């Protein structure tokens, strides 16, 4: 007899964890399938290991088992992600789909915890108002969000207070605080924890920005500055972004929502269980369950009339496509991602970049959203500008050297031993715009070891992306000069990568079933009882990191599901 579950959650990452917690707390028995292994805190006590986590990318899916292909346009043949596929499998763990196993991307994320601004929900309207109706490409598929900031504010609040975010509010109910973000949309209350101690070079960055007339403030962080609920105060070990936290200071669904769900007694986790098909009734209009492979490749089927798919924007769209759930042809469309324009500086004094989490740093938000000044480059929408003074170990640092310098020999040795301790980064996050040209579909050739088709990404950096990278490089250069940097360089443009770990848009939410995939609660227009959640729902990508917004959406989805059952 086929097994039956009251509800199935596929993927226990940032969004799946939240939904599993809310459902189990309401008494629903949830079966969670996750393709990764269950990690324990004990396993991470000695995670100060760059070879294991950075060089060998032991937490992320390997291209050999989880192939993803890419091509710049629909005339080219796609191949395994060329920026990440090295001779020994993966060579770049930070430009692949996120880590796997309960916790998902929040196992090894950086923890930059942003609310969108009000403007982010109205990107299209604001761009057209300011730059005219023809400002966007003819191929643009940009739309405004079907919800606004006010709709999400209570859910942002829940993310911050239920899961734990540290920071300084800039606008509580309209009352400005110059220590916080002067541009943030009003919030009901501040953060549950004060900001973190900043990494050594941050003061220099902040002071330079102030002299240049910017209004820097501290990055809100999903890292505990003090003990809070299940989180412990950060130890500033600096093996943070790309690593797991050995003291549970970093907010990860593994220790927040998933742990809380387990404590209800209503959650069963089946790890190493890879969903490959979403099953429907003969009409195709109702979900009936999920089929998955166990670790040995055996096929199992579980029936349920409530299925939540939370496998990250990329795998979500792959699963829908592989299951044939794409009646209106919108699944996989509107792929968006960030380019970082990563800049590096050498400072005159020791910056000791190996200390502190990535997010123990100041940011500048003056040039984000519609706040980007009129400019010659033609930049229509801005981005946050973030200092990265910490969280940099030697192996990673050696992969980012000034262009033109020979990467080996005595000169390299001298440079690296002199300057490693003086490095610092600045980056921003240029949001790509949705376009008919950029999408995901199933690769016609490449399959995984279970015979399932790989996801194929068709994406290139647009003229607008390149213009924005150029514009922001000038800004970063001027900040570096003001900081007294002795060297400054940028990552190559256009970037070699097309995955930034901030992929969104691939199962867009909307009110009109003909041009979107899910509704604002993440429920499929096509198939009742099927919720597809995460950044894939985003109509547009903002200049901020996406996770807190997709966490807020997950709380919204959970409320809706509980209203309906």
């Amino acid at each position: 007899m086929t097994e039956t579950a009251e509800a199935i959650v596929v993927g226990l990452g940032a969004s799946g964890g939240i939904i599993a917690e809310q459902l189990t707390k309401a008494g629903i028995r949830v079966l969670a399938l996750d393709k990764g292994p269950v990690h324990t805190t004990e396993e991470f006590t000695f995670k100060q290991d760059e070879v294991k986590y950075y060089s060998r990318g032991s937490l992320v899916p390997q291209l050999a088992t989880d192939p993803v292909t890419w091509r710049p346009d629909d005339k080219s043949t796609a191949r395994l992600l060329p920026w990440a596929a090295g001779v020994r499998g993966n060579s770049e763990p930070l430009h692949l789909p996120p880590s796997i196993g309960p916790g998902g991307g929040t196992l090894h994320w950086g923890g930059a915890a942003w609310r969108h601004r009000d403007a982010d929900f109205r990107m299209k309207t604001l761009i057209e108002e300011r730059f005219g109706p023809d400002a966007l490409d003819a191929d643009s598929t940009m739309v405004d969000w079907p919800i606004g900031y006010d709709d999400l504010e209570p859910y942002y609040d829940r993310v911050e207070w239920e899961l734990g975010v540290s920071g300084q509010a800039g606008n509580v109910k309209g009352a400005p605080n110059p220590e916080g973000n002067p541009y943030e949309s009003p919030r009901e209350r501040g953060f549950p924890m004060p900001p973190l101690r900043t990494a050594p070079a941050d003061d220099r960055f902040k002071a330079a920005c102030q002299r240049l007339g910017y209004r820097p403030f501290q990055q809100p962080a999903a890292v505990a500055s003090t003990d809070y609920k299940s989180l412990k105060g950060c130890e500033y070990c600096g093996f943070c972004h790309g690593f797991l936290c050995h003291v549970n200071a970093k907010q990860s669904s593994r220790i927040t929502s998933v742990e809380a769900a387990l404590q209800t007694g209503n959650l069963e986790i089946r790890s190493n269980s890879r969903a490959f098909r979403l099953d429907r009734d003969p009409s195709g209009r109702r979900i009936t369950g999920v089929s998955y492979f166990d670790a040995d490749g055996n096929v199992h089927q579980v029936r349920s009339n409530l299925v939540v798919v939370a496998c990250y924007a990329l795998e979500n769209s792959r699963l829908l496509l592989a299951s044939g759930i794409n009646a209106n042809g919108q699944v996989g469309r509107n792929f968006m991602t960030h380019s970082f324009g990563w800049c590096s500086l050498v400072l005159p004094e020791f910056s000791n970049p190996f200390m502190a989490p990535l997010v123990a740093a100041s940011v500048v938000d003056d040039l984000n959203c519609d706040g980007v000044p009129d400019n010659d480059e033609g930049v229509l929408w801005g981005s946050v500008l973030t200092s990265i003074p910490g969280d940099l170990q030697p192996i990673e640092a050696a992969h980012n050297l000034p262009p033109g310098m020979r990467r080996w020999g005595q000169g390299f040795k001298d440079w690296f031993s002199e300057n490693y301790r003086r490095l610092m980064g600045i980056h921003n996050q240029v949001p790509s715009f949705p376009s008919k040209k950029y999408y995901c579909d199933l690769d016609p050739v490449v399959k995984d070891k279970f015979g399932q088709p790989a996801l194929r990404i068709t994406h290139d950096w647009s003229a607008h992306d390149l213009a924005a990278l150029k514009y922001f490089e000038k800004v970063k250069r001027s900040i570096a000069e003001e900081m007294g940097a002795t060297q400054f360089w940028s990552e190559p443009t256009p970037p070699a990568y097309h995955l930034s770990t901030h992929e969104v848009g691939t199962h867009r939410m909307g009110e009109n079933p003909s041009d979107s995939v899910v509704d604002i609660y993440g429920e499929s227009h096509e198939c009742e009882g099927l919720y597809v959640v995460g950044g894939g729902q985003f109509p547009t990508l903002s200049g901020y990191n996406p996770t807190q917004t997709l966490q807020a959406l997950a709380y919204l989805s959970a409320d809706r599901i509980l209203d309906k059952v």
Partner: protein
Amino acid sequence: MPATNEATKVSWLFLTETEAETVDAVSARIFPSGDGKPGARETRVITYIDKTTADEDEALRRCYRDGVEALNALTSEQYGQRFAELPEERQDEVLERIEASTAPESTRTPEGPEDEGLLATFFALVWEHTIQGMFCDPQYGGNHEALGWQLVGFPGAQWGYNAEQMRAGFDSKTIPIKTLEDLRRELKRADD
């Protein structure tokens, strides 16, 4: 300079003597030792590479095996000597040519000469592993006595840093370096 440091006298897990000699010579050009400060030889990068190739998959092993053969074939043909026997300046010239004339495997055009792609991939791989061998935790066989970390002022496997250490300009070389083994011992002591 022949590879005569301590590390190379042990028996290898995967590499042959010639392979070890060749790879050691290449990694010694990436992080040289002539300035009296630790380089690839002192940190025992070759031990790291031997262990890694033994542990990893066949594709990687083939790349080492075929890469060494192609490199020595190239230098034998041009100079009548194995790579490791060439003077350092010559070695640098050879490596520069490999780096300049070819692109690594993933970007190379299908028409390119097979060996050139192979050599570029091989050199890229030795570069990668030399960096790892210099700065890995010593449990992996490289970064012997944490000499690589000492060289750049990285304190290693620390549990955390305090506010005093996080002042701008703080000299990190005053923080005693810790390896994972040190950390393990410390935690065990605290438990006892």
